[in-house]
């Protein structure tokens, strides 16, 4: 019976990557390899000011002194950083005024993903900053946002049009010397998104960015900076899928969030990059540094992530709770299948008084994958009455996969209350049979059960994202759903 079960699980978890296709857009690339010239090339391409070039070069020089971190529960052949193209951009022929001017092939790509800009614009009222291989192609809804004083644009545009804001906040949450991958990103970042919500403004739409890695052998180095000024609110969505690839692609992004007094930032991610094939060949290496700082009192930052893609995920969206009474939240679903490896979690750093944090992590492992939760809850001496609640659950599909939990707690203040709960479960034969007896086949049953298991996290996603996320969970674990 056990054996049958595993066969079924294997069958339904062995689906091919559904979003594997490739768009052909003329590239404008940097020479292979990394040195100061590469960085000067990138900076010149982007017509950057001198201070930014300096920022990059400093980061690069620091990066040279660092070695790749080795503590995560992941394994991969050594990455040859000299074998990577650090800049590729679709050639922009002229300024785009409307969607009609966007490369039809690009629009087609979005259509295949079911997230056409056209539809988004018309139906959902979501402003979309579409990023394809490093350069923002088109930003919509800028006008509406401008009315509220909300700035939402590509990082390059922000450098051009709002240099003071960028200068003030870039690197203030994730310094360029923070870690190996952050230093690399700071040296070679190509583009990304910038978002500023002025004092007291509640951003009227969900801000959404779809990232997409598209050029062969091109590392992707996104950089996102979100600043919510006093009393501001914004919900930001990042989502991505990638075309099928043979060679591994490195991705090392940085996301920085700043929340001032009484501000709230909700950051949601659905990540579905190419995870490699069933044999574990290819797939994206995803080494991301995401961190937010609750700078002012009563501010709040919440991370919600659904991670189904990438061959390797190394990612710990964190919150530094500096302001008194500030709140940090982390809701995560991480799915690994076949030979995927995920080492993900969060850090909640309690610096201020009465700070609170919540961590809900749901790992789902299938195939021969490895899924690790790694989390740190730190309370410093002056952080009176800090509270944390953590719940880390693992769900195993089959018996060849692994789930690991590494919770670290450092409490220096006696008044803090830190709770940690952890469970490991399997989809039971009883549950599967119960579903099947109602006419629901194994595939749909697993999708149903997994979505139920992840519900506590999914319910924190914005509506339109939640639907997509549910589909993704199904797709990444099954063959035909969706």
């Amino acid at each position, binding site marked *: *019976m056990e054996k*049958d*079960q595993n066969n079924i699980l294997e069958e339904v978890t062995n689906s091919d990557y559904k979003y594997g296709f490739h768009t052909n857009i003329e590239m404008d690339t940097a020479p292979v390899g990394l040195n100061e010239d590469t960085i000067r090339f990138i900076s010149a391409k982007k017509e950057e000011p001198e201070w930014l070039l300096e920022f990059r070069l400093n980061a690069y020089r620091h990066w040279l002194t660092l070695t790749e971190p080795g503590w995560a529960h992941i394994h991969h052949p050594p990455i040859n950083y000299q074998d990577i193209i650090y800049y590729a951009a679709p050639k922009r022929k002229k300024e785009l005024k409307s969607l009609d001017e966007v490369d039809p092939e690009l629009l087609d790509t979005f259509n295949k993903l079911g997230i056409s800009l056209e539809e988004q614009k018309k139906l959902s009222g979501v402003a979309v900053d579409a990023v394809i291989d490093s350069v923002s192609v088109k930003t919509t809804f800028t006008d509406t946002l401008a009315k509220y004083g909300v700035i939402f644009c590509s990082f390059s545009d922000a450098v051009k049009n709002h240099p003071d804001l960028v200068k003030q906040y870039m690197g203030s949450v994730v310094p360029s010397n923070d870690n190996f991958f952050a230093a690399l990103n700071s040296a070679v970042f190509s583009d990304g998104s910038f978002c500023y919500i002025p004092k007291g403004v509640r951003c009227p739409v969900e801000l959404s960015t779809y990232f997409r890695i598209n050029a062969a052998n091109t590392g992707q180095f996104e950089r996102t900076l979100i600043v919510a000024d006093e009393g501001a609110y914004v919900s930001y969505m990042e989502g991505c899928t990638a075309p099928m690839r043979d060679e591994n692609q490195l991705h090392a992004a940085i996301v920085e969030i700043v929340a001032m007094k009484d501000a709230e930032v909700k950051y949601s991610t659905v990540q579905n990059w190419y995870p490699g094939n069933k044999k574990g060949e290819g797939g994206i290496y995803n080494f991301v540094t995401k961190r937010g700082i609750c700078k002012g009192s009563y501010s709040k930052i919440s991370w919600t992530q659904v991670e189904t893609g990438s061959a390797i995920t190394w990612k710990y969206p964190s919150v530094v709770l500096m302001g008194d009474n500030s709140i940090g939240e982390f809701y995560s679903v991480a799915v690994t299948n076949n030979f995927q490896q995920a080492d993900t979690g969060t850090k909640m750093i309690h610096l201020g008084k009465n700070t609170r944090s919540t961590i809900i992590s749901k790992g789902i492992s299938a195939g021969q994958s490895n899924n690790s939760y790694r989390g740190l809850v730190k309370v410093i001496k002056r952080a009176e009455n800090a509270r944390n609640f953590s719940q880390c659950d693992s769900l195993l599909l089959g018996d060849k996969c692994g789930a690991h939990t590494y919770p670290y707690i450092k409490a220096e203040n006696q008044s803090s209350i830190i709770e940690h709960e952890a469970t490991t479960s399997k989809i*039971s*034969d*009883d*549950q599967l*049979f*119960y*579903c*099947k*007896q*109602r*006419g*629901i*086949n*194994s595939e*749909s049953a697993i999708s*149903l*059960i997994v*979505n*139920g*298991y*992840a*519900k*506590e996290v999914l319910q924190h996603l914005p509506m339109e994202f939640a639907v997509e996320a549910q589909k993704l969970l199904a797709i990444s674990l099954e063959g035909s759903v969706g």
Partner: protein
Amino acid sequence: MLSIRNLHVSIKGKEILKGINLEVNPGEVHAIMGPNGTGKSTLAYVISGRDGYDVTEGEIIFKGRNILDLSAEERACEGLFLGFQYPVEIPGVSITNFLRTAINEQRKYKGLDPVPAPEFLAKMEEKKQLLELQDKLASRSVNEGFSGGEKKKNEIFQMAMLEPSLAILDETDSGLDIDALRIVATGVNKLRRPDNSTVVITHYQRLLEYIVPDVVHVLFDGRIVKSGGKELALLLEEKGYEWIRSES
């Protein structure tokens, strides 16, 4: 509707069912009684296609077709329903979502489009009333944190929603208080039609006062050792299984 011939079933090499014969016609209600561990649930599981049971001999014909080669979900889609003795919890999945998925899968099997939302909701409402279910029940996760009685009621609710041709109710009465028993029984009776059948597995004669069976069978050590009318249940209650043991 259902005809079982000389069914032998083993679990891990041990024979549990030792030659079952059973004939259930459309419109009939059959009761199966018998001591603990004689194979009643095993029979229910084997009919509904659960893995892990070796059918070493015999056949199960459902609506004129040998179903031994069909998967559990195919049998369900063909109109077979099992009310579980121990209903299973599915955390995070609402009853509404669960039933909509089940109904749509069954419709897909029959080549039909998904049920339109208003139609589905109206049906939920109707059946909830039939079983005097609390409104909020449908939004709760399947069986999670349900009391024993609520779980059993929920099984009948699902039956009402799925409208099977043959329902096997495995000890649906155990754990029900007297009011719930009446409600469940009334529900089952209201759902009776000339073209569907019910097999109730029970230990108590009491249920059979509400759901009056056409035939009562006594399952004993893997065999049906006695069949009769509803008076057989009364006799059993009076004399206990010792009486069967001495007779067989």
